[in-house]
């Protein structure tokens, strides 16, 4: 990766953190720690942007940083508008880093920030206990107007003035010097007041320290960012300047300005190069860590997904190769070789597990995205949503998380749009004003479950039934179970909302959600209670590519059935099975439909003894009748290519140990 690319990765990381902090701020506005974090991220963003020539990023982050320094100092309150503005700017940053032009957006945001800061200025002047504004700028005007009792309080005004002088670049104006200052000091009777212009490389806090013993209304520190700032008199009630006095100031200080901003630019350059040095140092440390293999707490190495994928591919092929070896070994009687291969097997499995673990990331990484989505939608729809999460440390394959994101968002969109009621409706139904949306996840076996639960109005099964009939999906005269009715939601072209709204009704239906989840070998299910809400449960396999399967055959051709789906296997006589016209078997006292693969593929010559494999997939049972079972196999699973994608009774293919290929059965689809 070249430096530029690294920078982009870094910026995206910062933006992600920034977004996360903003979401925390939504939960607890004005949380000082998070505000400080936001300020810091913006500062880092600004610092590095200039180096890589992203002027727009520099400009926007600079302005945002201003805003947040005011928020941090309590001059402006972090409110919803600002949160929106900042979130919007995060989007703009992303556009900018992707090379898009967003000038107009930037100007809009900058305009908003300026309005915000301006309106706060008036508020600020009435605020007696102002603090120093920690600006990135390091030029300040200090208005110093000590009270009459200053001497009696043991404060030495001359010491303060001297110390300011010691700072370096400074200029003092003595106002109202009716009696020479020296005389005033000797008489311990102060009538003058002071204006100090300070250009310094010290931290703002250090400047503030000089005036530590003065009261809030005795001094005011104003950061100077431009020449224009010199002519504004934003003073408090106790410190006022006449126009003439301002004139004096502008005249006297203007001469200083070029120098001053020169110093400042230099200072920032120094700061940035120091930051960069630090960054490099950290990088170096990371490299060392890898070389020496030393474990450091929380040490992370960023690896590109391509590299990871290639690792996974190699590991996958090794798993296949191991099967091949095992296959070859079946006829050998060399015990030592057998032992060696067993060892290899254990190691490959270990290698496989670690390789897949690398790809696992906690579900938490999409939380912020979902939070933002919820924020936007609930605002658009005028609904109040309390979003709670649980078990987001559950890990999933990175690729899986990427793929599941869109379906999740769609489900959430639907839940808020169609599930949750408006605050008024909720109050009428004796519910909390805020609707509840719970996003939770947990592991079970080699599956991950993700649930989205809302406490809205739930699905109206009767409505679904009518609509299903209307759309020709359901049969008017047939009785349907609740589960079957809910399943209709996943049919193409089905939507229960009377008015197609901007949020959910954008042509992407729940059928697409179902399809996408199925393509991950996952399942989605709905439970609902009218008036109380609904739960969407998504079940996903832990990894996408390796699968324990049962190998079955129909004549020469082999097929794979995921072991997790197999409930029971037995041998039955062909005559007995095909005795009746309806293709059903009795299993555990239940009538279960079966599909004979031989029949399905139009082959004849049925064997005398057939093998029945009972498959249970999410409580839906189907039996598959095959010639026989060959064995258990851990296979590397690959999706089918475009040509075969429409054949939905197969969800993938795999190369077997002997080099032949086998198709992965999606048994439930055989029935249709």
């Amino acid at each position, binding site marked *: 990766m070249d430096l530029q690319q690294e920078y982009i990765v870094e910026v995206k990381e910062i933006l992600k953190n920034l977004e996360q902090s903003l979401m925390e701020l939504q939960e607890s506005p004005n949380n000082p720690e998070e505000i400080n974090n936001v300020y810091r991220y913006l500062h880092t963003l600004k610092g590095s942007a200039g180096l890589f020539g992203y002027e727009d990023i520099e400009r926007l982050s600079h302005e945002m940083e201003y805003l947040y320094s005011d928020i941090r100092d309590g001059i402006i309150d972090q409110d919803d508008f600002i949160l929106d503005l900042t979130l919007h700017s995060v989007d703009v940053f992303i556009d900018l880093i992707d090379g898009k032009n967003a000038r107009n957006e930037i100007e809009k945001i900058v305009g908003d920030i300026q309005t915000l800061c301006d309106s706060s200025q008036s508020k600020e002047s009435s605020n007696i206990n102002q603090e120093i504004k920690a600006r990135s700028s390091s030029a300040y005007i200090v208005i110093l107007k000590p009270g009459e009792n200053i001497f009696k*309080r*043991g*404060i*030495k005004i001359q*010491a303060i003035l001297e110390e300011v002088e010691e700072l370096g670049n400074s200029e003092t104006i003595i106002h109202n010097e009716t009696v020479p200052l020296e005389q005033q000091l000797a008489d311990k009777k102060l009538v003058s007041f002071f204006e100090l212009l300070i250009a310094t490389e010290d931290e703002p806090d250090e400047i503030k320290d000089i005036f530590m013993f003065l*009261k809030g209304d005795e001094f005011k520190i104003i950061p100077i960012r431009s020449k224009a700032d010199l002519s504004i008199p934003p003073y408090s009630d106790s410190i006022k300047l006449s126009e003439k006095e301002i004139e004096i100031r502008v005249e006297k200080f203007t001469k200083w300005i070029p120098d001053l901003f020169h110093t400042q630019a230099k200072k920032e350059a120094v700061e940035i190069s120091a930051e960069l040095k630090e960054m490099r140092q950290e990088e170096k440390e990371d490299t060392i860590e890898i070389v020496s293999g030393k474990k450091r707490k929380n040490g992370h190495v960023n690896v590109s997904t391509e590299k990871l994928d290639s690792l996974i591919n190699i590991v996958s092929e090794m798993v296949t190769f191991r099967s091949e070896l095992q296959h070859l070994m079946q006829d050998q009687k060399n015990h030592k070789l057998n032992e060696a291969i067993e060892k290899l097997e254990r190691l490959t499995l270990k290698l496989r597990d670690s390789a897949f673990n690398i790809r696992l990331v906690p579900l938490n990484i999409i939380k912020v995205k979902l939070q933002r989505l919820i924020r936007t939608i609930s605002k658009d729809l005028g609904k109040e949503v309390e979003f709670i999460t649980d078990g987001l440390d559950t890990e999933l394959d990175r690729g899986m998380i990427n793929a599941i994101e869109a379906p999740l968002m769609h489900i959430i969109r639907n839940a808020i749009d169609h599930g949750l009621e408006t605050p008024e409706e909720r109050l009428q139904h004796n519910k909390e004003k805020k609707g509840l949306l719970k996003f939770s996840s947990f592991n079970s076996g080699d599956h991950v479950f993700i649930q989205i639960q809302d406490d809205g109005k739930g699905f109206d099964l009767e409505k679904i039934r009518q609509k299903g009939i209307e759309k020709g999906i359901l049969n008017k005269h047939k009785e349907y179970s609740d589960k079957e009715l809910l399943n209709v939601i996943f049919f193409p072209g089905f939507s229960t909302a009377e008015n197609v709204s901007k949020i959910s009704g954008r042509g992407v239906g729940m059928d697409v959600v179902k399809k996408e989840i199925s393509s991950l070998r996952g399942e989605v299910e709905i439970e609902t209670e009218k008036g109380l809400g609904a739960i969407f449960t998504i079940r996903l396999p832990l990894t996408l590519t390796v699968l324990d399967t049962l190998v079955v055959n129909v004549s020469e051709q082999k097929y794979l059935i995921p072991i997790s789906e197999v409930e029971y296997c037995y041998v039955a006589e062909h005559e007995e099975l095909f005795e009746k016209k309806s293709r059903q078997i009795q299993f555990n006292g239940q009538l279960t439909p079966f599909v004979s693969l031989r029949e399905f593929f139009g082959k004849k010559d049925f064997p005398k003894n057939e093998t029945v494999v009972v498959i249970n997939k999410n409580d839906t049972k189907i039996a598959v009748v095959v010639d026989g079972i060959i064995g258990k196999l851990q296979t590397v699973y690959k999706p089918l290519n475009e040509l075969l994608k429409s054949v939905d009774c197969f969800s993938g293919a795999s190369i077997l140990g002997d080099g032949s290929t086998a198709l992965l059965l999606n048994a439930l689809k055989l029935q249709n």
Partner: protein
Amino acid sequence: MSKKIVVAEDFNVSRKIIVNLLSKAGYSILEAADGQEALQHFDGQDLDLLITDYNMPNMDGAELISEVRKNEHYSYIPILLLTTEVKEEKIQKALDEDITAWIKKPFQADGFLKIVNRALK
């Protein structure tokens, strides 16, 4: 010549800590366990700072401060007043007229030294 600081604090442990801190920083200390004792140090000699507790037996901090200020020689000496609780507004305001700064107890050593150093400038 090192600067001279009067430290008035009735609680021995606290006083020792303060004295230790300030001696290490290179100041000369005159100790006092109450206001009356402290006042005896204000005998016309050159002093640079008074650090006093508020609640003390015999003579409390407020009284001590007003006595010190009455002495022309010490009218402008910096005074740091140690306190644990927020005082009534009236008392606070009155004291504000006479002291350099409040120091809230408990305090951090470096923050305390920073204030002392500045008061002595």
